[in-house]
């Protein structure tokens, strides 16, 4: 390999390492919010073989991603419209899902984050899919609003939305 190419290769490699390193060590708000919502999906998901204490701990962890006055409103095709107000009510609903469903896996393959001008709140559009009891769930579109509270991004509202209106 000629010396020039060697230096170019090293420079490109360093740039790539710097870019990904900076994103990993100093993530921006958008990356933080995405991580937060992915962690929320993980906490809401459960496997029926998990120990009851683990299920309870995950439900509490999921509630920790929410503001105390969170409002979750879910509706859509094939879904009975439901609304939960407040962190405690949502946590109870999550705990109830553990006893009703044999398993639940939620994923957000698409997340689009729109930061508000003040940098302290954000609106996120998400596609949610997954499996419940071995069956694929219908894809639903969600809109989250998040607020930054004590440095943490917390979910203030969740509602179903639709591309076609």
């Amino acid at each position, binding site marked *: 390999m000629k010396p020039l190419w060697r230096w170019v290769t090293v420079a490109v490699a360093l740039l790539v390492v710097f870019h990904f390193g900076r994103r990993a060590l100093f993530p921006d708000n958008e990356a933080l919010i995405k991580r937060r919502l992915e962690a929320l999906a993980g906490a809401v998901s459960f496997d029926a073989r998990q120990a009851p204490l683990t299920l309870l701990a995950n439900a509490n962890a999921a509630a920790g991603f929410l503001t105390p006055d969170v409002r979750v409103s879910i509706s859509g*095709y*094939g879904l009975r419209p439901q609304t939960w107000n407040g962190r405690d009510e949502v946590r109870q609903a999550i705990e109830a899902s553990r006893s009703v469903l044999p398993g639940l896996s939620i994923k957000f*393959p*698409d*997340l*689009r984050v729109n930061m508000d001008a003040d940098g302290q709140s954000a609106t996120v*559009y*998400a*596609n949610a*899919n997954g499996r419940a009891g071995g069956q694929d769930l219908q*894809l639903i*579109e*969600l*809109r989250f609003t998040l607020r930054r509270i004590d440095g943490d991004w917390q979910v203030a509202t969740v509602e179903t*939305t*639709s*591309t*076609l*209106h």
Partner: protein
Amino acid sequence: MIPSPEPAPSPPWWQVVLIGRRPKRTLCRLVILLITCFVVFRFVLTPVRIDGISMEPTLRNGRIGAVYRLAFLTHEPRRGDIVAVSPLAGERSGYYLKRVVGLPGETVAFEAGRLLINGQPLDEPYVKRRYNWRMEPITTGVEEYYVVGDNRGMDIRDHFQGRVLRSQIIGRRLL
């Protein structure tokens, strides 16, 4: 007398099968092939698998097709086009495949299962079964289209349809 150079030993057969006689050239071909596939499948022709019955009988559930992403570079979507609509959050989850029935600024309604555009019934030879759909008139905006599936034999409440922004229409169904 100069001794003639010994011919280079031929590579083993498995190497020829796997990476050819000239590995560098094979690598170049592979890179070009990968880049071409990426560009074509990402920006030109996106493969899709139909999931759902809302476009039946035109598109059966489970059928494989493709979306031509450059279709609307030269002209706007036309009535009757089957288009792919990107969800608000992004398109990694998939697209909605629907038929354009209403153009910008038009009024769309359903009356006794018939589709009305600006109050006039639209001839829709692709619709084979009609349920008694009824919907109050909806007017599309300047940058909006009205899309609906071909399966009108299902309950209107179970059928995903509505207005969509032009920017969310990413291409036309090709196959």
